[in-house]
């Protein structure tokens, strides 16, 4: 992120608040990838991820006047997206418990890798990563995703998920413990072999 980007975000937000919708389209263009990646990592289904990412942008648009321009727009946006996904996962679990609906089939990833061999390994890896993430409770999953894909500090994650730093410290630790147990139990072991040899 360059410094010019930061100032541009605030300018764009100001323009949106003045009624310029094209300025918001520019913000969507800029942040569609991180937001979509977050909703995908959280929800694990491409269609649901797209819907959730669009909903997150719509929510940002609706509540744009609540945005504090002294903060990073990206962080604010990702915080909306992660909380929305957590809510959605909690609701999804409730519906699954109530109607016992089968899980959707695992999605094949649409990666823009040029080499089919690489894209196969990539999609294998992504599938294994998704399986690991999906074994975590929503709160834990969000902490891991924000830590690894967005390089957020404990303090930032705590603020985004409206909790304390010590809660994040223990969530990340517990999540790592659970995932490490799965690694030890041999889940996705072929993936880790590939990782080690790469």
């Amino acid at each position, binding site marked *: 992120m360059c410094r010019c980007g930061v100032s541009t975000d605030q300018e764009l937000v100001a323009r949106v608040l003045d009624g310029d919708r094209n300025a918001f*389209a520019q913000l969507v263009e800029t942040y*569609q990838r991180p937001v*979509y990646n977050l909703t995908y990592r959280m929800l694990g289904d491409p269609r649901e991820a797209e819907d959730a990412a669009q909903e997150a942008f719509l929510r940002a*648009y609706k509540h744009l006047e609540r945005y504090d321009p002294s903060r990073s727009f990206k962080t604010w946006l990702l915080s909306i997206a992660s909380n929305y996904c957590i809510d959605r996962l909690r609701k999804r679990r409730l519906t699954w418990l109530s109607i016992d609906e089968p899980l959707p089939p695992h999605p094949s990833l649409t990666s823009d890798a040029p080499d089919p061999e690489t894209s196969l390994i990539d999609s294998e890896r992504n599938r294994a990563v998704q399986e690991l993430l999906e074994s975590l409770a929503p709160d834990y999953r969000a902490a891991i995703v924000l830590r*690894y894909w967005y390089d957020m500090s404990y303090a930032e994650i705590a603020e985004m998920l409206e909790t304390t730093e010590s809660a994040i*410290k223990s969530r990340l630790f517990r999540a790592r413990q659970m995932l490490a147990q799965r690694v030890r139990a041999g889940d996705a072991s072929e993936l880790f072999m590939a990782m080690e040899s790469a």
Partner: protein
Amino acid sequence: MMAHDPYALMISLSLDGLLDAEEEEDLHRHVQNCPTCAGVWRDMSTLDRVLNSSGELAPPPNFTLGVMARIESYETQRRLSPWFALFAVMIMLSAVVSVGAPIALFVSGLYRRLFELPFLGSWLSFGLHMVSLIQSSIRIALGTVIDWLTLLTADPAALAVVISALVLASTWIGLLEGMKAAPARSRSPR
């Protein structure tokens, strides 16, 4: 088991670069002498590398258009909703007034007073007179039709007359139509 727990937490913190040099050294010393914690360290480090090497996924094309379409419909809804609310209130008010007012007038007997009013009273009685006139003429017209139908179905002679009249009329209509078409056909060969 309990003795390893603080070290497991330290491994997690170490992966996030949150241990100072002294804590880091303490952890390393323990891990070197403890196979359990060495295993945790190895597994968590592998996990750390896997997660760190997972790239960002791109959204499908036209994602921005999809967002802007949602915003458009949200804005339309927001712009129209006060008018819809006003409209609904107006409809409800007029429904209450148009149903409630006559009932109230009738139940309270106040409607009689309306006829005593100097100008409105005469118009009202004129209106009522017109309504009863229309009502009775409809009744007369309907009565005639019903009388005819009763006669037709009860008296075979009358039914026969009507049917033969219908046959005769359709024959004449057919003949007239044929005559209209005939000159065109005869003219075309010349």
